[in-house]
């Protein structure tokens, strides 16, 4: 199993995927962090809550982790390399398991990178203002851990979704439309807190009180249920699908 996981990680690291997604993280985190700091007065910026909000911008990494998960599964069908994969490892549930574990590892790495980028950009802007830098406070540690967990789970869900659909572009588009349109629509009905995006957000903010989100543990349970559910559906779909 370890060799399959290593192979999955090498697959991801030997294309330009990480380069482009890394640039995307820098652009998104950098833009939002910069705009927020520049538009916030120093009194507000000096509070722990405000700087925790800055740290939470790194949760964009969980969306990138979701895309990486989709690419891990559906990308192989897009390029036809899935045949090579199954020729080397014909027991398909093992392949799916390797992709899920590799996805979770990369999800942590991607969100960790997003945290590093957000932290660095915030540090650069805050050092120019007369406010204390609190992003290295132990009080924000739960936020950092929550974002890493959300990244791992989002990548697992992405692998499952990619395996179910087996069409890379369609899977990414559907996931983004769901997050940008589907969940806001659910918000109107007041049932958004059980939707996957909101469940992952509850994990990412580590249970910070919000009327729109579940608490940490219920959120984690719902996010886990989505991750496991999509992973199981993906495993069944891949097992039943011919590679022709």
């Amino acid at each position, binding site marked *: 199993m370890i060799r399959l996981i290593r192979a999955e990680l*090498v697959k991801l690291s030997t294309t330009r995927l990480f380069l482009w997604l890394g640039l995307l993280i820098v652009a998104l985190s950098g833009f939002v962090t910069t705009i927020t700091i520049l538009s916030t007065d120093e009194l507000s910026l000096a509070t722990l809550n405000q700087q925790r909000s800055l740290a939470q911008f790194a949760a964009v990494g969980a969306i990138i982790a979701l895309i990486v998960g989709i690419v891990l599964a559906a990308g192989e069908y897009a390029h036809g390399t899935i045949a090579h994969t199954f*020729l080397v490892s014909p027991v398909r549930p093992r392949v799916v398991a390797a992709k899920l574990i590799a996805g979770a590892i990369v999800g942590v790495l991607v969100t960790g990178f997003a945290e590093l980028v957000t932290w660095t950009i915030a540090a650069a802007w805050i050092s120019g203002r007369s406010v204390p830098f609190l992003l290295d406070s132990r009080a924000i540690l739960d936020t950092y851990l929550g974002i890493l967990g959300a990244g791992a789970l989002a990548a697992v869900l992405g692998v499952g979704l990619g395996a179910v659909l087996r069409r890379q572009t369609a899977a990414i588009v559907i996931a983004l439309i769901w997050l940008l349109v589907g969940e806001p629509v659910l918000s109107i009905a007041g049932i958004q807190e059980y939707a996957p995006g909101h469940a992952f957000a509850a994990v990412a903010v580590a249970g910070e009180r919000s009327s729109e989100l579940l608490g940490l543990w219920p959120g984690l349970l719902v996010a886990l249920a989505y991750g496991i559910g999509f992973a199981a559906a993906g495993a069944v779909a891949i097992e039943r699908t011919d590679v022709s």
Partner: protein
Amino acid sequence: MAGAPPIEVRGLTKRYGSTVAVDDLTFSIPAGRITGFLGPNGAGKTTTLRAVLGLVRPTAGEARVAGEPYRRLRDPLRRVGAVLEADSFHPARSGRNHLRVLALAGGIPLARVDDVLAEVELTGAARRKVGGYSLGMRQRLSVAGALLGLPELLVLDEPANGLDPEGIRWLRNFLRAFTAGGGAVFISSHVLAEVAQLANEVVIIHRGRLVAQEPLETLMARAAGGTVARSPEAERLRALLAEAGLEASISSADELRVAAPPERVGEIAAAAGIVLHELRTEAATLEEVFLGLTSEGPS
């Protein structure tokens, strides 16, 4: 499993909805030989090969490799090397990295990657992205992937498609060298001439069903055909040939067709003092035999 044929297909059937791609196909291939897998486009060759390799689940029947279903093989890369389409690569990944992924997943030492790249003469292009490879280079990369585990069986699906004459010659020499080392090769093609220069055996399918499985020499003998003789005493000659155990048919007033070499027909006619106006071999080409087999439908 010791003694099991490299590939054994029994009652294999694959349906896609109402379309029957492979219909109750049964054959096996011998060890240490090159077996050509022939049939027109759409005959079911690729589906059969993918069922053999565990990529397609049969509707009925089974396919075994060395006595086991492919999905149950331990370390399949060390047992079977497969060459499928030449375009199933990530275009942004280098050839060397493609092979590294396979070697890592298959538990093959990474040193083999450079060995097989040298074997298929791709060392110089190893670090280039596959998207920039020519069709021939991608085909060689496929072969390199198939060789990683030093398998005893190679399965190739239309490997000559799109190759230039130099590439085809390289492939031919390579496969001959592989079987000289004791390996078995199962190679599909819709062009008999391609396989005829290589194969020892042929399996021919049409519309998903087996049409013929025989040594290439037997197919060649079919192609050798018979003899046409013209004589004013055609009926008497036919009777004499029948006495000699040779089946002959009168195709026109003075013309006979005999399933025997012209030398034998000429000797019988001369011994009986029968005048011959014409004596010639009627030879079909291998391609004509192939087309005949695959146009009449399954036997």
